[in-house]
């Protein structure tokens, strides 16, 4: 994300003397920076600070406790933690499958809506976007009913024509959650890509038409490369969202016997904090944030290099 800043248009040249007068940028920035520092930077700082400590007790089980500096030992514990590793592996697997499927679907819808073949554009746009407006807690709740082996009309239907898979069983549950995420965010991503398509200059199409390029070729060789930055943006946000997966598995815990407490790293961080081991939870969250950064930044670098090669 940060890497996109070099593409920024150059700032206005303002004479030095003028700028000295009031530093207007500071007054524009401060109203945002003050709450940002208070509600993001300070808590993050506190979490990092806490992650360097460990609890020590004296005087028996219910004796006195104190925080002692423990260096990076919480981090060592996090990295060695089997549940954490399994959780990271699970969200990576989830992301490797779900993100491309969702974005592929979003791209195809956007291209169709942008092409001449589609009608009722506004209707489709709103219908596809509605799931994004439904809170995760409620969305997972609705899907919980639709997956339920006892209550779901879909399961009834599938049973009538054959056998329904157990959506909440250990084999499928991860993908049942992936479906909920796809359902929620496809429309949102589609709109970002669609808007990028709409913003493309008309002349490009004229050129394509003169070349005699058909719909598919226009899409493949002209449109997709031009909306590539939009795809990058949506991918980065999807990577972040995937690594922080929380609401869906938490809600699914109530209906499936297959979601343990450390199912995703974020769930584990929450559960560990709930049992008062805040230092470990903080270290876990920091590791997760760094992993998110590495993945999203690595993806950006990868796409940039690709861009240069083109």
């Amino acid at each position: 994300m940060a890497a996109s800043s070099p593409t920024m248009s150059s700032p206005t040249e303002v004479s030095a003397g003028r700028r000295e007068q009031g530093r207007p940028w500071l007054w524009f920035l401060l109203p945002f920076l003050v709450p940002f520092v208070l509600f993001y930077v300070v808590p993050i700082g506190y979490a990092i600070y806490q992650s360097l400590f460990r609890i020590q007790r004296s005087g028996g089980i219910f004796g006195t406790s104190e925080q002692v500096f423990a260096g990076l030992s919480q981090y060592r514990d996090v990295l060695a933690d089997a549940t954490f590793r399994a959780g990271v592996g699970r969200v990576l697997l989830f992301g490797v499958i779900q993100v491309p499927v969702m974005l592929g679907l979003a791209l195809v819808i956007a291209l169709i809506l942008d092409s001449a073949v589609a009608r009722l554009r506004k209707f489709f746009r709103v219908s596809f976007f509605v799931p994004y407006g439904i809170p995760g807690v409620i969305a997972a709740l609705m899907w919980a009913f639709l997956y339920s082996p006892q209550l779901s009309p879909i399961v009834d239907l599938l049973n009538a024509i054959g056998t329904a898979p157990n959506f909440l069983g250990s084999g499928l549950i991860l993908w049942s959650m992936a479906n909920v995420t796809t359902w929620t965010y496809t429309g949102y991503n589609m709109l970002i890509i669609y808007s990028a398509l709409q913003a493309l200059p008309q002349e490009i199409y004229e050129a394509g038409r003169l070349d005699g390029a058909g719909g598919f070729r226009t899409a493949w060789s002209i449109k997709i490369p031009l909306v590539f930055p939009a795809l990058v943006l949506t991918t980065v946000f999807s990577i972040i969202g995937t690594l922080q997966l929380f609401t869906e598995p938490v809600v699914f815990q109530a209906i499936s016997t297959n979601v343990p407490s450390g199912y995703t790293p974020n769930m584990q961080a929450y559960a560990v904090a709930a049992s008062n081991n805040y230092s470990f939870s903080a270290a876990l969250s920091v590791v997760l944030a760094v992993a998110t950064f590495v993945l999203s930044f690595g993806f950006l670098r990868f796409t940039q290099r690709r861009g240069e090669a083109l």
Partner: protein
Amino acid sequence: MSVSTDRASRGSSTVDAMPRNRRVREGSRGWGLIAMVFLVSLTVYFLLPVYWLVINATKTQSDLVSTNGFWFSRIALWDNLSALFERDNTVFLRWVVNSLLYAGVGAAIGTLLAAMAGYALAKYSFPGREFIFSSILGGVLVPATALALPLFLLFAKVGQTDTMWSVFLPSVVSPFGVYLSRIFAASAVPDEIIEAARLDGADERTIFFSIATRLMSPALVTIFLFQFIAIWNNFLLPRVMLNDARLYPLTYGLFYWQTQISRDPQLQTLVIVGSLVSVIPLIIIFLSLQRFWQAGLSAGAVK
């Protein structure tokens, strides 16, 4: 949305402004049919759970588990609605008002702050600019679960936990909004206009509030919408900060009922009909804003 608009736009190539006039003969009739089938089946996919919600909001608690989820049984929508609003001294109405305050006012202020910050980052050069920008974006990377306890301690320090402020204040910060508005300000507010205004003697504040905001308005609508939805859906912050049920936002209130279902099964119906009611304001907001915000989205993506 309506069919007639779409037809009208096909009749005259100059009317349809939003899906820009680009009706090139890209596909044959056959492809059009396939595309329509594809889109319609996706509509079924995306709206099926919503349809389920509508159907089941009309059912009694016992019909909910014993009748087909995709069709009506005894219609009890009115009973459900009045039970919803009467429950616990009309607490649901409070939740609706709370949510509108948290999300509406929060998103409005958040958008303003983000717009100013993004504008400053785009249009002024100062040392540390890129560092500040990267730090702001870095804020997105940290999972909210890690921030909950420190935020709570911070508010406890000033004795403001379990108040509306404790949920409202942190939610006005939108790093993504700053990102969008920086990119949009860079492209939509030409340097020449700023310079010209300066030569006319306008001060920086006037330039921003009367010229830049107008040029940036599509992006601002987008930021507002995203921020509104983000606050509306926020779950962790109210969970950590609030104990007084009358201060809950709508979604957390519904979750709170959901946790009590095994003690009081009637709440199951109320959660479902309440979810349906809670989705309505969001759909209204989409529909009324969608004209404005598309252009804003594209700016964030293309530049």
